[in-house]
């Protein structure tokens, strides 16, 4: 059980998909103009990641190695289509804001890379925790960026007025998203440097 929790934690901070592995950056910039959108897309990603990881882990012996990539893509597309149909039933307002990106979860590199690197080799339970960890890490990243941008851009958090004015309008423009991610990444590097004395090389970024 302990190792499973470690797997989960690993995905949240030490191998955070956005800031550490630098995978699936597109939604990290696009939907994070406020916390709510980030939260919704993050939950969708957690769902897709956990479901696909489990599916692959269960059927891993049946999937022929030569067709594994198309098979993974199909499995991901299946769960994405499911969430794409279920989400509007839950909350149509937010769905409208994240609609395109929910569909694009199919091509999020983070999901397929977890399937390839982890779920295709490990049994169900570890795969579940790995998928959940990565998903939650992604969710955490989206919410962090969303919170910074919403607070500095519109002076609110989750729609509640906090500051009463708008300090930096640029933060909710496209530009702001890139800046915030760049600075958070640098901050992660800095913390790591203070703790361990060396700067890790950033992920492969694709």
């Amino acid at each position, binding site marked *: 059980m302990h190792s499973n929790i470690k797997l989960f934690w690993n995905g949240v901070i030490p191998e955070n998909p956005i800031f550490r592995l630098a995978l699936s950056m597109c939604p990290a910039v696009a939907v994070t*103009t406020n916390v709510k959108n980030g939260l919704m897309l993050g939950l969708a990603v957690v769902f897709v990641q956990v479901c696909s990881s489990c599916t692959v882990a269960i059927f891993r012996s*049946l*999937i*022929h190695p*030569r*067709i594994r990539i*198309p*098979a993974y893509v*199909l*499995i991901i*597309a*299946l769960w994405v*289509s*499911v969430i794409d*149909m*279920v989400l*509007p*039933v839950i909350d*149509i307002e937010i769905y*409208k804001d994240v609609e395109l990106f929910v569909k694009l979860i199919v091509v999020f590199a983070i999901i397929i890379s977890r399937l390839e690197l982890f779920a295709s080799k490990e049994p169900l339970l570890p795969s579940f925790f790995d998928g959940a960890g990565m998903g939650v890490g992604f969710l955490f990243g989206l919410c962090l960026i969303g919170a910074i941008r919403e607070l500095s*851009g*519109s002076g609110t958090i989750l729609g509640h007025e906090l500051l009463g004015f708008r300090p930096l*309008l640029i933060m*909710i*423009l496209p530009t702001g998203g890139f800046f915030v991610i760049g600075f958070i990444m640098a901050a992660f590097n800095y913390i790591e440097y203070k703790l361990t004395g060396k700067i890790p090389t950033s992920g492969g970024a694709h």
Partner: protein
Amino acid sequence: MKEILKITVSLTCVCISAALILGAVYTQTFEPRQRIEKKEKQEIINSLLGFGHGKERPKDFEVYPVNRYVIEDPEAGTLIGYVVPLKESQTALVRIDLAGKPAGVIPLKAKHEDLLDKLLLNSMVKTALPKNATATFAGTFYVADIQGKRYGYVLEGTTQGFKTFINMMVSLDAKLTVTGVAIVKSEEDPGLGDEIKQDFFKNQFVGKTLEMLAALKVVKDPLPSDYLDALVPARAKKAGLAPDKIEEIRKKHVKDDIYALTGATISSRAVTTGVQNTVSKFSKRFGILNSAIERKNLQIAF
């Protein structure tokens, strides 16, 4: 060879099972999704008419949709068809020629509740028309009644925004004065053009009559602060403005032009022309439709 067969079979299995699961989810979620979309529209209409969140709708409050079709009939030429609700849950297609004269009424099989189902209505209109005529859906407006008395109208309109189209709804009272504007769908820049959804912009249209709208312009002056307080309910509450005081300030500014959003003049102008066009077209059409209904002596529901 054997391997290829194996690969093909397993891939096919994956595809088929995926398609089956998707089909099942689709059929399960289709109903509620449609219901939610319908409900959302209903809520926008209600809140535009002043019966939004928490405010009870009065008894005998009815909203009737009227759908407009452009009919191309090889014999009669181009006609405009309105699907209007009649008394006792009947409906009829009123055809009007381009000069504004009525050109026949066809009773439809649709009930009142079918009027919101666009696909169903399209097919019903098509079957009611002569075989070689075509009908294209052109728009909807809603008529609201309270206890048999005309309460107001809600119109749907689109306009070319900064990036894509802006879909909006405009509500009018019985005298065709604007009572509210709602932005239904838009993709303007967040923080700039997206502010068209905010109360301090939308509510500037409230109280504009038909004549005021026709001469309405967009100015780049800053919004006067007392007007801003009166436009946004939350700010009015903070400033301690009484309802009659709000009314007074709004009345003082009702003849003002629209104050453009900072950094988003194009979006502001787009919404303004959108409101102008939607209302002016509606007033023309509704006059024609009313006279046609009178001349044909139809028992309409509203």
